[in-house]
C-alpha cells in the first residue's frame, strides 16, 4: 500500500484478506483509543475502584463489549498475520487461466486460521457481552 492515500484506500478492492486487514486496523484504532486513556483515568480518580465505576455505566458497558470484540479479533487475526510474516503460513498461487487463486487463499492453514478467528471472536464476544451485562461488578 502506498502511503498518504487516506482511509478510503482501506475500503478499495475489498476481498476476504483485505476485509480482515481492514477490521484488524479498525480494531487496532479502537483498542488504542480504549486502553491509552485508562491509566490517566485511574490517576485522575486516585484508585482503580473509582475508575471502575465508569465502566459500570451503560456507555461503559457498550464500550467494554466493543473492547472484547476488538481484542479477540485483533489478537487471533494478529497471530495469523505474524505467522504469515514469519513464513510459517504460506501457499503457492494457483496459476489457472480462468480462475487463478492468490497464494494465501490456497493455504489451508491460512483459511483454517481465518475460520478460527471468526469462531473465537463470535463465541468469545457472546460470552463477554453476557458477562459485561450480567457478571459480578466487584471482585470477591
Amino acid at each position, binding site marked *: 500500500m502506498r502511503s498518504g492515500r487516506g482511509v478510503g484506500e482501506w475500503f478499495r478492492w475489498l476481498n476476504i484478506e483485505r476485509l480482515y486487514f481492514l477490521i484488524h486496523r479498525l480494531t487496532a*484504532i479502537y483498542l488504542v483509543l480504549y*486502553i*491509552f486513556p485508562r491509566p490517566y483515568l485511574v490517576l485522575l480518580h486516585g484508585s482503580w475502584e473509582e475508575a471502575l465505576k465508569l465502566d459500570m455505566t451503560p456507555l461503559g458497558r457498550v464500550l467494554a463489549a466493543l473492547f472484547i470484540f476488538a481484542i479477540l479479533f485483533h489478537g487471533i487475526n494478529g497471530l495469523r498475520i505474524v505467522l504469515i510474516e514469519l513464513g510459517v503460513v504460506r501457499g503457492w498461487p494457483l496459476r489457472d487461466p480462468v480462475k487463478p487463486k492468490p497464494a494465501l487463499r490456497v493455504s489451508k492453514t491460512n483459511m483454517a486460521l481465518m475460520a478460527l478467528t471468526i469462531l473465537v471472536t463470535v463465541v468469545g464476544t457472546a460470552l463477554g457481552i453476557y458477562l459485561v451485562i450480567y457478571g459480578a461488578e466487584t471482585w470477591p
Partner: protein
Amino acid sequence: MRASVERLILIVGAFIMIVGMPAVILAAVALGKITIEDMLSTNPLVIIPYAFVKIGWGLLWAIVAVDWVIHGSHGMRRILGELIKSEGGRKVASYLIDAIMVITTVVMFYVLVFVP
C-alpha cells in the same frame, strides 16, 4: 526508526501479549489466586486488570500492559504513516507518538504497581 526495526518490535510485542496475557491469567487460576467460578461469573473488566492489582500481581500485569502500550504506539505510527502525505508530517507524527508512548508507559506502570 527503520521500518524493519519497527516491524520487529511490533511482532515481538504481539507475541508477548498473545502468550503473556493468557499465561498470566492461567497462572493466577493455577495458583488459586483467581478461581474459575469467579472468572466465569465476573465482568471481564473487573478481572483485567483490577483483580490483578487486588491480588498483588500489578507488577506482573504491568509487563503485559507496558508491552500493550508499545505495540499500540508502533501500530499507530504505521497506520498514521499510511494516512499522512508528507515526509515532514510523518516525522512530526512519529515524534508525537514517541512522546505519548513514553509518558503512557510510565503512567501505566505507575498505576498498576503503586495505585491501590
